[in-house]
């Protein structure tokens, strides 16, 4: 190994290599070795293998860092970094991608668009997420972001003959490209101001500058706009409802947890790293975006009839809660964001899983009325949905409560009582629309008696998300400790 590719570099890169390798392997095997539709389950096995190898690489990094007692491990002259933060998010990505893959198999069969590329795209998008969580350099982060986004553009439009899926992909692509433009422009100004693309050096340079420097402000505003687009915070949220509604449901699930979590990781890296010293300038922007997200997300969700669209607005409001944790800015707040993202991952996957399980020939299952009488038809899924919705609303003893709890606590510790009270009151609004779904499931009678067809994979995924949502709520201690390790110092 040369000085340009040391053993450490390799060690840090292993999970990404595995993801990319198996992603490409699936493409090739799909083409040459398993061309028969029935053989696609081998591709799923390949994906599982890829996740296992990536997980093994991650596990080695985890034990190495813990064993050496070091805070972080940098590679490629500081372009990539492995620390508690990146490990936390990458474990979450592995869980999310695996659960999504498990629930996808039958869904794609029903949709009639079952292609091997799908699994490859899941892995490649996850590879992009890996770089978003581990990147410490503008170039790495930008390329990681685009890798992830490009995979998602394709996945959102995966139902080629479905007009809504096309439209969602197009809107997501255009607005995603637009936001990337803003982000890149902000990055170019940051580079010009500091003379480096390394986050640490940019931080040092910015700390030395006058915070009121107009170029710095422009750089900060454009970067913030780009980042807010990615996490679908108001006023840059327009793409989310359309993309969520039009995309295949499994992709919506992946988009809402994977892309969201990775973007939050990215946002934390930027705001707590290079832009930390300019806090006074960006904090008002984030406060505004957070409150606007809570308001628009919660109020718009009330009138929705399509569950996917409703969840899109709810996810906008959740972005608002996550931003509030960052606004509080103390240790509890950052830990709170990490916990919130973790909780949200399991919970949202659970909700989407039920919608995916509903899908069968002749029933799309994304309308609230499609859930009517679910308690009678399949009580297990109704229960899972109930737990997950309670968690999204933040009612104890589910996981969502722990997440909200930390955000509120951090705001109160930071002395931002008005924000805390506003955030608390929006919980009541959120309950109203989440309980519309509950009402439909438990209190209406089924319109058709068709039973749900589920597969082993869907049942495993259901168990995982349900256990995650309840488990984090009742025994939060290990998860909290895990999230605590992720704090960026």
């Amino acid at each position, binding site marked *: 190994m040369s000085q340009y590719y040391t053993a450490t570099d390799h060690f840090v890169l292993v999970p990404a290599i595995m993801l990319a390798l198996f992603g490409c392997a699936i493409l090739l095997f799909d083409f040459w070795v398993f061309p028969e539709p029935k053989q696609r389950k081998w591709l799923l096995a390949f994906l599982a293998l890829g996740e296992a190898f990536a997980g093994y690489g991650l596990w080695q990094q985890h034990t190495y860092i813990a064993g050496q007692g070091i805070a972080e491990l940098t590679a490629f002259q500081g372009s990539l970094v492995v620390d508690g933060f990146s490990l936390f998010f990458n474990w979450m990505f592995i869980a999310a991608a695996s659960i999504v893959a498990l629930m996808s198999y039958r869904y794609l069969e029903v949709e009639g668009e079952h292609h091997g590329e799908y699994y490859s795209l899941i892995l490649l998008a996850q590879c992009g997420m890996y770089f978003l969580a581990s990147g410490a350099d503008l170039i790495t982060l930008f390329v990681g972001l*685009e890798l992830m986004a*490009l995979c998602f553009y394709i996945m959102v439009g995966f139902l080629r003959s479905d007009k809504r899926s096309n439209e969602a992909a*197009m809107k997501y692509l255009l607005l995603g490209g637009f936001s990337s433009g803003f982000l890149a422009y902000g990055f*170019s100004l940051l580079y*010009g101001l500091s003379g480096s693309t390394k986050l640490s050096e940019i931080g040092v340079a910015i700390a030395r500058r006058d915070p009121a420097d107009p170029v710095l402000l422009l750089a900060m505003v454009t970067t913030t706009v780009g980042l807010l687009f990615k996490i679908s915070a108001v006023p840059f949220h327009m793409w989310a409802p359309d993309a969520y509604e039009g995309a295949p449901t499994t992709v919506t699930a992946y988009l809402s947890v994977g892309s969201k979590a990775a973007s939050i990781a990215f946002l934390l890296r930027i705001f707590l790293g290079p832009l930390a010293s300019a806090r006074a300038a960006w904090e008002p922007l984030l406060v505004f975006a957070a409150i606007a997200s809570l308001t628009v997300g919660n109020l718009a969700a009330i009138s929705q009839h399509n569950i996917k669209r409703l969840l899109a607005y709810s996810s906008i409001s959740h972005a608002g809660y996550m931003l509030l944790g960052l606004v509080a800015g103390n240790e509890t707040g950052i830990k709170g964001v990490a916990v919130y993202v973790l909780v949200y991952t399991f919970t949202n996957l659970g909700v989407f899983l039920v919608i995916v399980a509903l899908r069968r020939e002749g029933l799309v299952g994304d309308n609230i009325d499609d859930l009517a009488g679910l308690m009678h038809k399949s009580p297990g899924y109704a229960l899972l949905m109930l737990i997950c919705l309670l968690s999204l609303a933040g009612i104890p003893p589910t996981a969502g409560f722990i997440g909200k709890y930390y955000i509120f606590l951090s705001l109160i510790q930071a002395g931002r009582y008005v924000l805390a009270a506003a955030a608390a009151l929006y919980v009541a609004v959120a309950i109203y629309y989440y309980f519309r779904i509950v009402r439909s499931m438990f209190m209406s009678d089924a319109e058709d008696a068709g039973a749900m067809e589920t597969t082993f994979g869907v049942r495993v995924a259901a168990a995982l998300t349900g256990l995650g949502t309840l488990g984090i709520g009742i025994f939060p201690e290990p998860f909290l400790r895990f999230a605590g390790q992720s704090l960026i110092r």
Partner: protein
Amino acid sequence: MTTAVPLSWYLILSAILFGLGVAGFVFRRNIITVFMSIELMLNAVNLSFVAFSYQLRQTDGHIYTFFVMVVAAAEAAVGLAIILTVFKNRATLEIDEVSDLKN
């Protein structure tokens, strides 16, 4: 006698190009034109990177430019494919007519 063009000129040009891209994105109604506006924004970014990089006598900015170009190319490939399927299914490229997804 040669005097170098000052950095600020490049930056102003880049800002203008970027602004034109944003304006095009917001105001144009044809999907292809909107897409081209995004490319224009990315090229404004490239210009600013190269200008900074030249000024700082570094290569980092150049490298970033190459990556932006690659990303733009990949985005064009994916984007045009998506736009093509939209056109196939609807036979229109007017952005206002592609509006099945609404509240």
